[in-house]
């Protein structure tokens, strides 16, 4: 584990449930710019293993950049990023990713199970093994899309496709599952089934949901990370508190209850770790 965790063991309040728990995601003073445009400035935040976190912020706030850095699809100009205790590109095998962009070529001939099987890919490794196929079938069950197994992917509705992509991410049996805007354009039925699947995963893997809805999050959420300009620094990330809201008050179903984000109540990083992240 990182030295930061060791520090956490000694400095944090022993009573905090996250005390000493290893980091799933760690951003330490990360900077990123497109040309001369700074997108992220000195961004520091962390997510503990097993947490269900929401990374929220308006469009253009830097969420996608954070996601791309986390997935190893981009490299920071400076700063340190660790995913499951390792640099992002070496942690990919333990990471499941559900992209927001459900755009696909409807003329691409492929079945649902073949899409899910892709989650078992590992670099240049050859054909899929029987174990890969078993994992794909288990992921289909887990994401509640087993009945669609042999259907052509192009014949599915938008919500069904999104849940198939969740199954694809789960097929890797990830320790960290990252979902980018999972409920965008999703019907209520699919949303309920999606959050039910995520609820079953909670505690067994770290889940990070990225969304532009800055007011409400699912009641599965343990940590709310808000991205936005703060004190002139673009792409700052802080933890905000959230409280449960009565059913029906939040738009969207979240498959159950929702929590309202309290943007005026910041949770300092030392609450769980003892040191500022």
């Amino acid at each position, binding site marked *: 584990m990182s030295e930061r965790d060791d520090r956490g063991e000694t400095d944090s309040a022993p009573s905090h449930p996250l005390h000493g728990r290893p980091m799933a995601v760690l951003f330490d003073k990360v900077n990123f710019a497109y040309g001369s445009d700074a997108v992220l400035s000195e961004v520091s935040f962390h997510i503990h293993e097993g947490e269900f976190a929401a990374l929220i912020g308006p469009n253009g706030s830097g969420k996608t950049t954070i996601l791309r850095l986390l997935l190893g699809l981009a490299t920071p100009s400076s700063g340190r990023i660790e995913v499951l205790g390792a640099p992002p590109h070496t942690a990919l095998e333990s990471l499941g990713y559900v992209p927001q962009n459900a755009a696909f070529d409807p003329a691409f001939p*492929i079945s649902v199970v073949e899409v899910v099987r892709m989650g078992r890919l590992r670099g240049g490794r050859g054909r899929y093994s029987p174990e890969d196929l078993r994992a794909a079938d288990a992921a289909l069950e887990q994401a509640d899309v087993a009945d669609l197994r042999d259907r052509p992917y192009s014949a599915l509705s938008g919500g069904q496709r999104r849940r198939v992509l969740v199954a*694809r991410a789960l097929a890797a049996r990830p320790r960290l599952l990252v979902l980018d805007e999972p409920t965008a354009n999703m019907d209520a039925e699919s949303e309920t089934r999606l959050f039910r699947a995520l609820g079953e995963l909670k505690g067994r893997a770290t889940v990070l949901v990225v969304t532009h809805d800055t007011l409400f999050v699912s009641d599965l959420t343990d940590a709310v990370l808000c991205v936005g300009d703060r004190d002139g620094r673009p792409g700052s990330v802080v933890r905000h508190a959230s409280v449960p809201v009565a059913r029906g008050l939040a738009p969207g179903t979240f498959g159950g209850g929702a929590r309202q984000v309290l943007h005026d109540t910041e949770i300092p990083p030392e609450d769980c770790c003892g040191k500022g992240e």
Partner: protein
Amino acid sequence: MSFLSALLDPGLPFVRNALLAGLLSSVLFGVLGSVVTVKRIAGLAGAISHAVLGGIGLALFLSAKGLVPGLPPIAGALVFAVLSAGLIGVVSLKAKQREDTVINAIWAVGMSVGVLFIAKTPGYADPMSYLFGNILLISGQDLVLMAVLSVLVVAGAVRFYPQIEAASFDEEFARTRGVPTNTVFLAILAVVAVSVVVLQTFVGIVMVIAMLTLPAGTAGFAARNLRGMMVLASLLSAVFSVGGLALSWETDLPSGAVVVVLSGAVFLGASGIRMLVTRTSRPKAERPDGK
């Protein structure tokens, strides 16, 4: 003389060569054509195939002038194909906003360079043979090249099927699974470039791109996955090649053009049927199924 009698006539070996070339090229057209189609890089493949004329013209010129005696046209074609594939690949990855311009420039400049060299080549060189194919030009060496390339392409497609499938379906996701998608893309372009050079002896430069897209496009209507698309496109390509050859023999028409027209007619017919089927089944497809 009928096509069948011509095939069996010991005095007409080129007919048998043409048939073998048609069957061998079907494997390449089917497998590579499916990849080109699902990756939507037909325009890139078209630019590579047309730029090849520049290499053929240069080789003919250098050989006829005695500067490089005996330089075969295929050598020049290969150099131009690989160079244009490399250039297109780099531009496609690094400068997306200029991709169209560069691809079309390579397409047109490559052909023009070929025409200029052929015009200045002493003696007679017929650009039509290279543009539209000439079954009389297929040699035993061409057949060996096609056979070797077919084996290599099939072996590569089997070995790297998961990577090709994922990189074509969802490039970003494939990258998060550690697939070197840029390398996959450049390798596909390189294999297409070499194949175009070998295949142009059968249908010609202009029509290679048609055969890389039409059988695969037709197969895409019926196939359930990329593997099925590759197999079906290869079979369709074989039927179009053999059928086109027979038809061109019986009607005394250029074989390459007949093969392509036949493939195009079936593709258009299949597209029409597909549109009708989609239109009539749409209400059913949109019915809520409770999922």
